[in-house]
């Protein structure tokens, strides 16, 4: 028995390695792990359950777009996309083993649209060391685009939080130059990113205009004490750099609890129409609320006849659990559109390296689900795909676009 064991183990190891190499190498085109002659395997981790489960629908919407491409266009260049979604519950400790599972056991070609800053940071080093693309992570942290040179297998998609905050700064300087500002921000990289963008955007005036800034922890029950402090500090303009739940609480508390009517700037993370409706139901007056957008809002009647919106509604019908009015779903469809675009461009040279090259430096796409005029662009020196956004104001039942697109490209060093 003792002598047989190594032999058996060697056979098992041989079988394992055969299994690992059995990716199907076709002689005519260049391919990679996770690619066969008729399929492409992508993987993701998202928060399908837990505190951040509201985001989980993004993965399903992405899958709906891939299904649409598979059914109506026969896949991308003849290859159908399979999308494996795993639930990490927004917990980095889960993201690591699940990502390892997708890479080493399921042998995905690339990771696509993983959700969350801490969760995706936890696997960045691993994926880069394995040279597995970590494409279009669903987080607006500035680090993804800024630190691209040290992590060349990782790329984000949406506008970075700092760029968005700079747009608010421009808007305040133009429309409320004498504002006295109070900031409520979440005490993590996400909130701090926004605060930095606002401070940088206001420039010299930051120290005089920002009267007070209060932070809350993501685990806190509510940010009421901080809002009371802001009101006490005598500010007339409030910035809410907070995730949906505390934002809804804040909007309601400002009206119903504090009987206060400041000008409100609301970060885009929490501006989907669904959340505004919830805030209104809880008693928020929602007067003078400003935010920014870059995706077409499915509830906005002005897009009723729009080709992109029609396509979105057709795509999202593939997902039985998706709410067509949820802004996260059109986000998912839009980012999946870019992914398909990248694979299409790779053509017969479908390797991990080539996919990364195209995504990080050769993107130049007009995405039908984004506001007209927005280009998804990357160059060899710029790795923030989307940098244009437009100011929007709340008009009782929906958001209204104001002015024209503002481009922040090149402002974040």
């Amino acid at each position: 028995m003792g002598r047989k064991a190594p032999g058996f183990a060697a056979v098992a190891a041989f079988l394992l390695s055969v299994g690992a190499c059995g990716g199907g190498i076709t002689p005519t085109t260049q391919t990679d792990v996770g690619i066969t002659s008729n399929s492409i395997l992508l993987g993701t981790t998202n928060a399908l359950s837990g505190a951040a489960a509201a985001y989980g629908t993004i993965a399903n919407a992405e899958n709906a777009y891939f299904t649409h491409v598979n059914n109506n266009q026969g896949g991308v260049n003849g290859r159908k996309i399979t999308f494996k979604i795993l639930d990490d519950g927004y917990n980095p400790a889960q993201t690591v083993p699940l990502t390892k599972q997708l890479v080493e056991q399921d042998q995905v070609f690339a990771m696509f649209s993983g959700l969350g800053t801490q969760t995706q940071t936890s696997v960045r080093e691993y994926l880069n060391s394995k040279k597995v693309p970590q494409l279009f992570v669903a987080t607006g942290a500035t680090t993804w685009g800024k630190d691209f040179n040290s992590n060349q297998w990782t790329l984000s998609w949406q506008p970075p939080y700092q760029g968005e905050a700079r747009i608010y700064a421009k808007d305040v300087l133009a429309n409320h130059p004498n504002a006295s500002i109070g900031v409520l921000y979440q005490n993590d990289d996400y909130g701090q990113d926004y605060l930095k963008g606002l401070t940088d955007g206001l420039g010299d005036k930051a120290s005089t205009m920002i009267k007070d800034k209060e932070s809350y922890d993501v685990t806190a029950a509510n940010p009421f004490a901080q809002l009371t402090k802001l009101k006490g500090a005598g500010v007339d303009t409030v910035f809410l750099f907070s995730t949906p739940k505390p934002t809804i609480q804040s909007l309601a508390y400002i009206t119903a609890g504090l009987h206060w009517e400041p000008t409100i700037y609301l970060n885009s993370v929490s501006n989907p129409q669904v959340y505004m409706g919830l805030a209104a139901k809880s008693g928020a007056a929602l007067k003078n609320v400003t935010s920014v957008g870059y995706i077409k809002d499915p509830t906005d009647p002005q897009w009723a006849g729009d080709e992109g919106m029609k396509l979105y509604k057709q795509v999202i019908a593939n997902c039985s659990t998706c709410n067509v009015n949820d802004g996260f779903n059109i986000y998912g469809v839009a980012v999946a559109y870019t992914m398909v675009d990248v694979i299409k461009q790779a053509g017969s040279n479908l390797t991990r390296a080539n996919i990364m090259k195209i995504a990080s430096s050769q993107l130049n796409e007009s995405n039908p689900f984004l506001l007209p005029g927005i280009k998804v662009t990357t160059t060899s020196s710029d790795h923030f795909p989307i940098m244009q956004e437009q100011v929007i104001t709340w008009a009782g039942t929906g958001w209204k676009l104001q002015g024209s697109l503002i481009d922040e490209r090149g402002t974040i060093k």
Partner: protein
Amino acid sequence: MNRIRTAPPRYWLVALTLVFFLGFPTVISSFLASEWTQALILAIAIMGLNILVGYSGQLSLGHGAFMALGAYVSAILAHRYKMDYLVTVPIAAVFTGGVGFLFGIPALRLSPLYLALATFALAVVTPSLIKRPAGLTGGVQGILVLQPDPPDFAREAFAFVTGTAMTSDQWIYYITLLLAVVLFWLAWNLVRHRPGRAMRAIRDGEVAAAASGVNVAGYKTLAFGISAFYGGTAGSLFALSTGFISPDTFPVSLSIQLLVGAVVGGLASIPGPLLGAIFAFFLPIGSNQWVPSQTWLPDQITSTVKNAGPAVSYGVVLILIMMFAPNGIVGLLRSGYVILNRRLRGASDPKTGQMPPDPQTV
């Protein structure tokens, strides 16, 4: 030879288990080995919790906090002070043990319910506390932990057996296994001897224990310290095996997961934590990935499991365990063994029809 033949069956079980865990990584993939590493790490943490809850009768809902402390001590020492990671493991363990001992002193004054609440509060504030000294802990950005390459002797031994090169994940598996074996052996010795008897006496009746001359305060704080020592070791290894830690790595649910594992495996038993850890680690993965893929299950069930995550499976299994196996998996196996033995040897033979007297179950 005679000793081997008359050894109680549990010794054979121990030997079998050891052989299984030693040989397992040579036939499974490196990824699966990394999953089993995490299960073993949970086993160490649950063993610590078992000493506290199962043997000394103090409830803790905050053991994730001790894991977090151990993980951060190791990661900071390795990352900032460039220490060899393996050297930092015992440092983290001892440090966490000391903190646990100190935490045990005020905990003495709390009745079980309030102790549970106090430890729960510890688990709740831990992620926020970690964020504050951002310069030290890296704040929300977390700390990357570089995984060590296997040393030459391990690489050669592994290559000799399997013919393939050893990965970092497999090396970390064997480090964890070694520590788990040592810590389980220590726990087994602890509970069979004087401190273990004292702890059980306190659990079963504090006044009676004090009347018999047991130092109640001393042993209760000692149990906290030892328990935190195990938690710190587990946390340190956890950081090593995941390669990255951040405040959200140690949510409240981790502490609950540990307690569920301890209860399901079987409190106040030595194999319990191992079984409980395997259960606690693989159940969430199974419930998230296996249940939704089953077409024969009604849609309502699969969608509930999908939306609620592992919590719903934990709930169902816990209820089933409470109903059918109140002493956990180990209790179930033990009573099954007794029944089987009686059947095989005949109920009329009471002497051989019973388990050998087991000091652990006293």
